[in-house]
């Protein structure tokens, strides 16, 4: 077991705990940069998809995992980002402009939905965002003058500094870049007063207020940031799918984003990556084993969503810490091996906290 001796307050605010961490993160980046030279195009494409979903997952994590605000409408943000990107590119705006604009424009929608929902408690918020999501989805379908309706909308190939960003590799590097930037910004956020205010709101609004935290301001901020990041993911998504269909941005997609944060582990950025890997690779895995499954289960049309549902149920019932939580526990177990403590595997008992006034 590695003991960490702290000798300086600065150690707690750097992004890595010791040099080892820095080394591993660096190595990971190098490997990720080299991967396209090793793997086949198919896997590069899949990994690109994982990055896109991871970006959207970060947006969801900041909102749900850190601020405790439930959103079942983030697919709408993704859609707004995607259409903004595609439409701007079709008008000849360069990528370096469209990408941030897609994020910022979606961020405005985040404020739009954030403001009226400030006074709502968790459950109302879930319902309100669900409604928002389905309204936006209907608009995508019916407003064909702008979105092309069910004919779809082809996404132009963007140029970056004169080079076309295309193919699996192009999307891969672009998404990786955006993911790293977004993770860096979020990690910064989480070690500053902003992030702590979000956590405070999540855990107790009443005392957050008494600590001087302006609830409305920070909740709106959380929505804006979440929408901004999801909008960026939407722009990437547009390039990833290359053809926008209006019914892609439905409730199921929103549920997938929530699954990312739940399965990965609420309240951790590492969890987002695990969750995105899971959510993107599960369908692939099913596709591979589809024909080997008994009783024709593999050809069942609802297989994928039901598996998502099933995994969600299992995770919530048995491992609320998600994959990342399980990983930490296993790591501790191995490090402490002969001295394993049963208690570290036992669930913390929590009691019903009523939000109601009696």
């Amino acid at each position, binding site marked *: 077991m590695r003991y960490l001796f702290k000798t300086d307050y600065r150690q707690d605010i750097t992004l890595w705990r010791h040099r080892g961490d820095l080394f591993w993160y660096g190595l990971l980046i190098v490997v990720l940069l080299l991967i396209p030279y090793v793997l086949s195009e198919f896997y590069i494409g899949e990994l690109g998809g994982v990055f896109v979903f991871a970006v959207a997952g970060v947006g969801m994590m900041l909102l749900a995992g850190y601020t405790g605000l439930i959103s079942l409408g983030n697919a709408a943000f993704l859609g707004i980002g995607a259409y903004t990107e595609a439409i701007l590119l079709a008008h000849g705006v360069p990528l370096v402009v469209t990408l941030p604009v897609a994020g910022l424009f979606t961020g405005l929608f985040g404020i739009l939905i954030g403001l009226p929902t400030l006074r709502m408690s968790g459950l109302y918020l879930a319902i309100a965002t669900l409604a928002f999501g389905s309204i936006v989805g209907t608009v995508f379908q019916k407003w064909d003058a702008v979105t092309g309706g069910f004919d779809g909308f082809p996404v132009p190939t963007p140029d970056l500094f004169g080079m076309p960003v295309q193919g699996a590799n192009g999307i891969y590097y672009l998404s990786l870049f955006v993911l790293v930037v977004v993770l860096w910004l979020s990690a910064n956020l989480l070690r*500053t007063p902003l992030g702590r205010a979000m956590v405070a709101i999540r855990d107790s609004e009443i005392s957050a207020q008494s600590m001087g935290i302006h609830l409305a301001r920070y909740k709106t901020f959380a929505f804006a940031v979440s929408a901004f990041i999801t909008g960026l993911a939407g722009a990437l998504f547009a390039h990833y799918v290359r053809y926008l269909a209006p019914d892609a941005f439905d409730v199921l997609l929103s549920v997938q984003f929530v699954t990312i944060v739940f399965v990965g582990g609420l309240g951790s950025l590492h969890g987002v990556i695990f969750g995105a890997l899971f959510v993107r690779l599960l369908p692939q895995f099913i596709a591979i084993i589809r024909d080997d499954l008994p009783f024709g289960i593999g050809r069942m049309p609802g297989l994928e969503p039901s598996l998502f549902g099933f995994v969600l149920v299992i995770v919530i019932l048995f491992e609320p810490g998600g994959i990342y939580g399980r990983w930490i526990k296993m790591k501790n177990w191995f490090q402490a091996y002969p001295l394993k403590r049963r208690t570290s595997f036992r669930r913390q008992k929590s009691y019903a906290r009523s939000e109601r006034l009696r």
Partner: protein
Amino acid sequence: MSLFRADDIAIRFGGIRAVDAVSFDVNEGEVFSIIGPNGAGKTTIFNLISRIYQPSSGRLYFQDRDITEIPAYRIAGLGIARTFQNIELFANATLLQNLLIGRHCHSTVGVLSQLVFLPAVRREELQHREKAEEVIAFLGLERYRDTLIANLPYGVRKVVELGRALCIEPKLLLLDEPSSGLNVEETEGMGFWIEDIKKDLGITVIMVEHDMNLVRMVSDRVMALNYGKVIALGTPDEVQNHPEVVRAYIGGEG
């Protein structure tokens, strides 16, 4: 030299007059206790001061400034901190993070500089950290620094909540039943801390408390409430022997 003054404040919930025409002032540097049977309206007074409830009549003054219309989130910035009767900590954060959230009202850096973590942000973070460490040392919480609140025993959480309030560097500290749920020794420890807070840190304290030993140990003055009304105000001994107070406690409903 009154630091805080409540002038004829009242609030009702449905038919209940939870606080009814209550007036008092608290002098700078004193420990002012509020006692009274369950449901007397003690916590409600705290909620009125910290602006969670809006009084239906009356005014509140802090440092001669009318704070009756000020929103709840600005109260900490003025220098009023509080604890809660049933502990309202940030349960899924570490002790240190909880204390740092207490520093929120002292942060001055802008959103964008936080997002890119400018050197100014780093500098300010270190200052907050130093203050939090001071509080940790003051309350002897070193060994729990990186523990999640959810994993701390109840008694320690009570102390953490006190610590979080101290991180605000308040001029006025509101303690809602600081000893509830603590054993005799812990309660005594709490008493010493309250004395230190008053003497060493120079913070004025309003305390709601049921434990009369603790009240007598630390209070300069005591106010007794019943059914939202003040029934006695004076030194601890005066109030404890006041016939109305005796009747409120023994007679219960009478």
